């Protein structure tokens, strides 16, 4: 049953995401790819949309993936809507229950030393996962064949130009404004550059 699966997969995402939105991206990506729900390209597009619309990135991505999968499985708009609801409910449920328990019963739970040890201990693991995921995304932009074969051939020069332009833009902005460019500004600028580099 696709809807139960959507719900459960996103419960897993909600339960194993530490360190905010960016910690969730590798897990959602892995879930989406291993279930063959959508291509890696479409998934990164969705991330772009999720980051430039209001609301938590995790919830946005869940809603989007749910609609796509539900619509594919049932072929109806209502299937898509129900898929969105299941995935969004799934990603929210673990936090809701955990926080309710902490708020109601376990106010001191977070201060317990073993709990802190575990919460701090998973951080380096998550940083490693996030950084390698980012590097993989760069590589996938540069070598479009990477997803199918593991040969680093067929360098996409336009992607290289994009990477250099955005990198230069972001560091220039940082030097000028003394703070990093916001996600939404980066995405909007990249969209305009994308049209310029890849053509109309």
């Amino acid at each position, binding site marked *: 049953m696709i809807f139960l699966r959507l719900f459960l997969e996103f419960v897993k995402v909600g339960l194993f995401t530490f360190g905010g939105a960016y910690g969730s991206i590798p897990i959602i990506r892995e879930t989406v790819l291993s279930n063959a729900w959508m291509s890696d390209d479409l998934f990164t597009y969705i991330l772009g949309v999720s*980051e430039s619309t209001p*609301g938590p990135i995790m*919830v946005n991505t869940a809603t989007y993936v749910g609609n796509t999968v539900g619509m594919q499985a049932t072929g109806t708009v209502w299937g898509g809507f129900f898929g969105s609801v299941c995935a969004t409910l799934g990603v929210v449920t673990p936090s*809701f229950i*955990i926080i309710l328990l902490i708020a109601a019963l376990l106010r001191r739970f977070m201060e317990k030393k073993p709990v802190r040890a575990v919460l701090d201990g998973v951080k380096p693991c998550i940083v490693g996962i996030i950084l390698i995921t980012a590097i993989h995304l760069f590589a996938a932009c540069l070598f479009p064949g990477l997803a199918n074969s593991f040969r680093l051939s067929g360098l996409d020069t336009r992607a290289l130009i994009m990477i250099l332009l955005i990198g230069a833009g972001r560091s220039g902005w940082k030097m000028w404004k003394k703070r990093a460019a916001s996600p939404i500004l980066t995405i909007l600028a990249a969209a305009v550059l*994308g049209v310029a580099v890849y053509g109309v």
Partner: protein
Amino acid sequence: MKKFPLLDLLVTFMKIGAFTFGGGYAMLALIENECVAKKGWLTHDEFMDITVIAESTPGPVAINTATFVGYKKKGPLGSFFATFGVVLPSFVIIYLISLFLKDFLEITWVASAFKGIRVAVAYLIIAAGLKMWKKLKKTPLNIAVFIAAALAMIAVDFFALRFSTVYMILIAALVALSAYGVGEIRRKEARK
């Protein structure tokens, strides 16, 4: 609004959900403005406590904070209304976008724009990762876990293995717990 606290929670958190871009951390500033400064639902210290808990428990920070504030104000039902409110705007917006994006992508210039956005997303993820790396305490154990996780990710990528990151996180948790246990035993022995 004062007469209907649940409705007040719902509307306040809908506002927060609708006007924050850039994920949970941007949302915290707005939550503080609404719930501490304007409504006086929480003191500043309570808000700081909630933030720490929301950041260290799994799941979206915004959801965690909404659930907590809702509970403080009106119990489990308050949690439900606050969480529902914070999710609703993004749900509606993204749902509508998801109906049309695929057709939009057929248009050449939209596809070009999204190819550009793909590069931006990679930059944003690497920037977030580097920021977390800077904040990380560089103990030998942390660095070892970091390297192990990175190598495992590369291996999974290269050999197209099916090894979920969930397992990596669980293993890291187990390693941290054992390290803590060993540390405690040593400390007890040192005291003897």
